[in-house]
């Protein structure tokens, strides 16, 4: 049938990934991209699986596992990924400061208003300290210095500290 995206959320415990992938493997599914993490004790996973059956069949297969493990599972068809000929230079946005509502939204809205695409984002709350790290792609028409100045101004407004730098993806 092609590629399906599966999103899973629920309480973390050993065996969640094993149980879900057992079902997909039984349908001859082949995982392509997957990302899995734990957010404050909640297991969160998104994966793309190349599988020869349809969405309804995979959902029905996964339902008993979801019930048993208390998971929210959502399945949908995805169009095959289109390789872009050349991606823009990735930049890293780093923000940290006292926790308050709206940091992620204000930063994301500033980026969206300039057509800057967020390709990866992690946030952490550690005591009263909030940290946001985002990898972004800046359109060619946008000056990184202008974006940096806008982020600095927003950071001042939010009472946080922000930096924008080219991402050195080859370092790790």
């Amino acid at each position, binding site marked *: 049938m092609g590629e399906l995206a599966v999103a899973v959320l629920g309480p973390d415990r050993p065996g969640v990934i094993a149980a879900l992938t057992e079902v997909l493997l039984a349908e001859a599914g082949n995982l392509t991209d997957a990302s899995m993490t734990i957010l404050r004790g909640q297991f969160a996973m998104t994966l793309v699986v190349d599988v020869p059956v349809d969405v309804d069949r995979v959902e029905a297969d996964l339902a008993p596992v979801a019930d048993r493990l208390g998971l929210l599972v959502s399945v949908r068809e995805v169009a095959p990924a289109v390789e872009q000929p050349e991606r823009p230079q990735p930049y890293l946005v780093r923000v940290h400061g006292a926790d308050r509502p709206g940091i992620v939204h204000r930063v994301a809205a500033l980026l969206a208003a300039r057509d800057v695409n967020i390709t990866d984002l992690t946030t952490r709350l550690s*005591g009263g300290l909030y940290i946001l790290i985002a990898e972004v792609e800046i359109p060619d028409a946008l000056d990184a210095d202008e974006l940096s100045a806008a982020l600095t101004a927003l950071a001042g407004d939010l009472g946080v500290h922000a930096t924008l730098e080219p991402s050195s993806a080859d370092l790790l």
Partner: protein
Amino acid sequence: MTHRPGRVLPVVTAPAAVLSSPAAAVDPRNPDIAQLAADLVATMRVSPGCVGLAAPQVGAGVQVFVLDITGHRKARSCHGLVVMANPRILDEGPAKPGREGCMSVPDLTGDVARATTITVAGTVPGTGEQRTVTADAFEARALQHELDHLDGLLFLDRVVGTHALHARKRYL
């Protein structure tokens, strides 16, 4: 080198503003600065796993830091106790990533790219003697971490990617 008895001071944690503000240059012969340096040494010595401390970390926005990586398993160069005011970087080599922690960000560590060799010059508080240190490996990393504090930067401002922050493993 300072021979005054130092007092153990409380360490300031992020998001304190003093940690994100550039520190002011000081008169190294000012007795208060010599006392502050002694206090930093005393505070570093009583803190498990601490190999360096900068004045902003005890709430003082001035350009003084102390460092001692003696006995650290990742050390190559080792200059024993380094105490400097108004330090500046004279030379630095190519960067490599490594894991860093900080008493001012107690629950997290991060992957940060740092120059693997560095030459730093500064003034010894109290005596006013000029000192130049050329360091590599872990000592070079620790020096850059402390100098960053004097520029109002935390390792959070340097982490190399969205997945470069980690929960800290406890010493005890």
